[in-house]
């Protein structure tokens, strides 16, 4: 019962739970990737920054958040457009940054 009270206080919804699960799986995925194929020393990318894979994940996630916010502020819903942009952006970050 206490568990249920705790969860109702946190006001969980399925979409937000899925969101956090996605972040968690990203971290797990990165750990597994690093374990089987270590990324090695930081790489010097096109922005002139030395980044590891973890840095690139952080830049991807933070940048994606701002892509979604900018879309919501300037255009509004639906959000398929920013989703596509964010995926392309994340790919580019992992490839070149």
């Amino acid at each position, binding site marked *: 019962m206490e568990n249920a009270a705790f969860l*109702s*206080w*946190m*006001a*969980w*919804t399925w*979409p*937000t739970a899925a*969101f*956090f699960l996605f972040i968690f799986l990203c971290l797990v995925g990165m750990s597994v990737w690093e374990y089987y194929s270590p990324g090695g020393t*930081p790489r010097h990318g096109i922005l*002139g*920054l*030395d980044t590891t894979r973890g840095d690139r994940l*952080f830049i991807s996630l*933070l940048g994606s*958040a*701002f892509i979604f*916010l900018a879309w*919501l*502020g300037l255009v*509004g*819903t639906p*959000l398929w457009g920013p989703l596509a942009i964010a995926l392309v952006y994340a790919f580019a970050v992992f490839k070149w940054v």
Partner: protein
Amino acid sequence: MNKTVNQKAWFFVLPVVLLVAFNAIIPLMTVVNFSVQETFGDNMFFWAGVRWFEQVLQSDRFHAALGRQILFTAIVLLIEIPLGLAIALTMPRKGPWVSVCLVLMALPLLIPWNVVGAMWNIFALPDIGLLGRLINGLGIEYNYTRQIFSAWFTMVLMDVWHWTSLVVLLCYAGLVSIPDAYYQAAKVDGARPWAVFRYIQLPKLKYVLTIAILLRFMDSFMIYTEAVVLTGGGPGNATTFLSIDLQKIALGQFDLGPAGAMSIIYFLIILFFSWLFYTLMMKDEAR
């Protein structure tokens, strides 16, 4: 060469992970949950999607508060960082005056934030406050409860008084840690004081200045207590910074949904700027 693999160190990190989970991650998750729902209290929540984000991002009220916040932080950083550095450079490195200076510098930092606000509130009152009477006595019309410029002036002055010490102490610690050999070498080469500052002290202070700018950026961007006690966001909305506006929405109007959305946007802005400052300043260091 084979790398030694020892994963036991992770256990030492565990307590801090648990602590951060309880004081940061769980509250943050809750805010995310609030930001997509509507509530009328009593733990009754209704799905609202991204409506609150749209509402906040497209509202003039949010844009205005964000603009004021950025302006305030920029002014405060532009004054406190050079001033703190300058004071640290003039402080004695040896002798009995060191402790006196350090204690004097630390004093403003020891005062609780609401007391700082209350002190300046009374100190700057135009009719009975020392500062207010003095400025008015000089023939300059000054009333921070009615004039926007006076309110901003008082707010900036209060923040500079309260927080420049932090920059001073950090820079001083950095300066003291520079070995004497550098200064001796500079003396042998006949370097002028400006060259000593530019090529020895400033590069050596890079890390502490990074930390000082980061701390002052985050703190001034989240300023709440002092501002709310000093002006309460007024006159009108002239000093309603993001945190004050957020508090009004969350606790004044009890709009948890929009407040949640605003908190997340606020958090992302701080996260972005902190990352940016840190990355830019550490960029050359990595090589």
